[in-house]
């Protein structure tokens, strides 16, 4: 370290001394252009489900009481510290002092109370209201203290408060955050050129360690071919999650780039409409699970990047149970199960595929695998807007492929209405018990039960955990290798 530093200084000195203008080159670059595939519909993380919103603003523009770091652990953010009462029902947060929003107004406990009350309200448009389900009341006894009282103990409260959906906003700017986000983060929003990019500049009055980049641009490049070209041309410095895994080999071979394969929270599933005719039959769903060769899907659609899963849970999580063996690839068994359910002569199902390549390519492979056991699929390729409308909200589908990228989202199977139409009282009871359990060991036990339950019921065909294909310039340091939350945290990024 010291040697290389000394050598660097020496080299710099020689360069400056001999060339005079060497100093220009030695000055580190302080702006970064990061690309992502989807444009956010708006920029208010407290009012939308789109992952793209968090991927722009989380930790950059907006912060919550806590934050989730690159390893997925909870860290203090706007709350400097907290204490929990003995019964686990009262959380007292001490707010950091001297925090200001980008518009100059100061942060106090009133803003926190406002933000949380707004997110929990009856008419709230928050996409993850479930995060706040355990909260009974938020109180602000003085400017620097927030007290959250719970209805029942909630083991994951601190984690939940670190989500993008739980960030703290100011009452003055809450209404306009969609187009003009005002937060407390290390970067302040500058402008949004719709369809092209979002620009942010360093917030010089940031409470914590200031960002190293003076300017960050997030560019929207949905087309994988265009992304490859932009990367090769140097128009973008980094692509946090490259949409075309087939192009990675090419970047790996190029010394200008670094390819980092990390983990994401993206459980990629062949989602089944459990309420639809033949699909409500457990035997049919199990047959589908046996009919799919996960490794072939990973190899064919993702060029080998991805980890097979047997349930809706991230393999890198300590509570993960490997259930991939429960439904080994076995076309004969699938056929037998279908025959047993009365579909010996086959079955016709619709398969709706959103744009990402895991869905479009994976869909074709799965369709061929299902055809081999007599399940005929009618594929239709849909855009995201149509997918959200028809599949997610309208539940008008038989099968679809999608990646659930929220962290710790097994709870979606316990929701009253969700597009899988999986209604199981036992699972709901399990989730209620989990929410009320604080002890980590007991929680892991319940999580294991929940994973097994989903696998037993073959709710969906669990395919693989999406890998994060990071591609960036080799001189860029500090980007997240993994995606424990939907975020592109640029706080610590710099050029070497």
């Amino acid at each position, binding site marked *: 370290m010291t040697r290389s530093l000394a050598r660097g200084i020496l080299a710099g000195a020689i360069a400056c001394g001999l060339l005079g203008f060497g100093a220009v080159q030695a000055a580190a670059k302080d702006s970064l252009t990061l690309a992502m595939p989807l444009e956010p519909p708006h920029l208010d993380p407290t009012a939308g489900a789109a992952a793209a919103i968090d991927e722009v603003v989380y930790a950059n523009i907006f912060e919550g009481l806590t934050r989730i770091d690159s390893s997925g652990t909870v860290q203090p953010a706007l709350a400097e510290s907290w204490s929990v009462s003995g019964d686990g029902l009262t959380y007292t947060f001490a707010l950091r002092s001297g925090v200001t929003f980008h518009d100059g107004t100061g942060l106090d406990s009133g803003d926190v109370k406002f933000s949380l009350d707004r997110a929990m309200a009856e008419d709230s448009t928050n996409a993850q209201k479930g995060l706040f389900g355990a909260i009974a009341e938020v109180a602000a006894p003085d400017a620097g203290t927030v007290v959250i009282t719970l209805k029942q103990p909630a083991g994951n409260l601190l984690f939940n408060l670190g989500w993008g959906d739980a960030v703290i906003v100011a009452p003055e700017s809450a209404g306009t955050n969609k187009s003009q986000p005002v937060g407390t983060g290390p970067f302040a929003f500058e402008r949004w050129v719709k369809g092209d990019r979002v620009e942010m500049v360093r917030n010089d009055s940031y409470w914590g360690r200031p960002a190293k980049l003076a300017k960050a641009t997030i560019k929207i490049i949905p087309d*994988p071919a265009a992304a*490859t070209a932009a990367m090769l041309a140097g128009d973008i410095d980094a692509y946090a999650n490259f949409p075309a895994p087939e192009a990675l*080999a090419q970047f790996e071979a190029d010394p200008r780039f670094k390819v980092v394969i990390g983990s994401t929270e993206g459980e990629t599933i062949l989602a089944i409409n459990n309420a639809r005719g033949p699909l409500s039959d457990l035997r049919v769903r199990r047959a589908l699970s046996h009919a799919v060769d996960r490794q072939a899907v990973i*190899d*064919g659609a993702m060029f080998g990047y991805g980890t097979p899963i047997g349930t809706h849970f991230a393999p890198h999580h300590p509570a993960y149970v490997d259930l991939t063996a429960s439904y080994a690839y076995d076309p004969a068994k699938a056929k037998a199960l279908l025959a047993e359910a009365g579909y010996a002569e086959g079955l016709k199902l619709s398969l709706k595929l959103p744009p990402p390549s895991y869905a479009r*390519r994976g869909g*074709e492979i799965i369709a*061929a*695998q299902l055809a081999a056991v007599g399940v005929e699929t009618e*594929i239709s390729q849909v855009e995201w807007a149509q997918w959200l409308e028809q599949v997610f909200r309208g539940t008008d589908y038989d099968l679809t492929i999608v990646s659930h990228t929220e962290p710790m989202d097994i709870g979606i199977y316990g929701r009253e209405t969700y597009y899988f139409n999986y209604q199981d009282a036992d699972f709901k009871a399990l989730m209620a018990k989990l929410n009320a359990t604080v002890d980590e060991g007991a929680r892991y036990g319940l999580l294991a039960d929940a994973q097994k339950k989903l696998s037993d019921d073959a709710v969906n065909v669990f395919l693989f955990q999406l890998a994060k294909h990071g591609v960036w310039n080799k001189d860029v340091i500090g980007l997240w290798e993994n995606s424990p939350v939907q975020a592109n945290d640029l706080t610590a990024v710099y050029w070497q």
Partner: protein
Amino acid sequence: MIGLAVTLVLVAVALLSLVWTPYPIAVIDVPGKLQPPSAEHWLGTDQFGRDVLSRIMAGAVNSIAVSLVAVGIGAGIGVPLGALAAARRGLVEEVVMRFNDFTFAFPALLSAVMITALFGPGAVNAIVAIGIFNIPVFARLTRGAALSLWQRDFVLAARVAGRGRTRITLDHILPNIASLLIVQMTIQFALAILAEAGLSYLGLGTQPPNPSWGKMLNEAQTLMFLAPQLAVFPGLAIMITVLGLNLLGDGLRDLLDPRLRRLR
């Protein structure tokens, strides 16, 4: 002649693919993906290990079927409308032709995108979309050609003899403009193949796993650096087909147009 030969080969390949292709078109073999052209796979394999030659052959059926029906819709509706406008004149003509102008005013591909967005992607909707935009082409052509015929002496004679307008249209007008329509059909056929490929390229036409040249091009796009041949072969197939049909159209025009025949 070349045009006729190319078109016949295309049709022959398409018919052949209905009963035989070198490999089954829908069977996926992931370990054998992205092979370069070889003795076993003449044009290599695609990203799922499917034989490209087989898929191009089957894609020909798709292109021909979509285009045939689309041109059929265009001519089937457009020609009667045009003939009606020429026979009736007056208000009927105004209404028909303004409606045509309205349809014509939208760029065809854009409107096709709109239709498939409204009614969902799929081969049938692509056919309808392409068909609708063939209507004004045939309506205008028919009306223009028919109008000049209505002034001719033999038509006037037929009218004096008390023949009805429908009768005259069927007996005298349509047979005399048939050659013109046939030439236009070959040209529209080529355009329809291009339009289908364009829609499928955008994911709005033929849905997987059915092969379509446009879709094959789309899939090849991100694989350009790994397997450029995947983009070349369907591209060549489209180019040769469209070129062949255009040459055929030219040839037919030379053959059927009496004025050009006299010049020769």
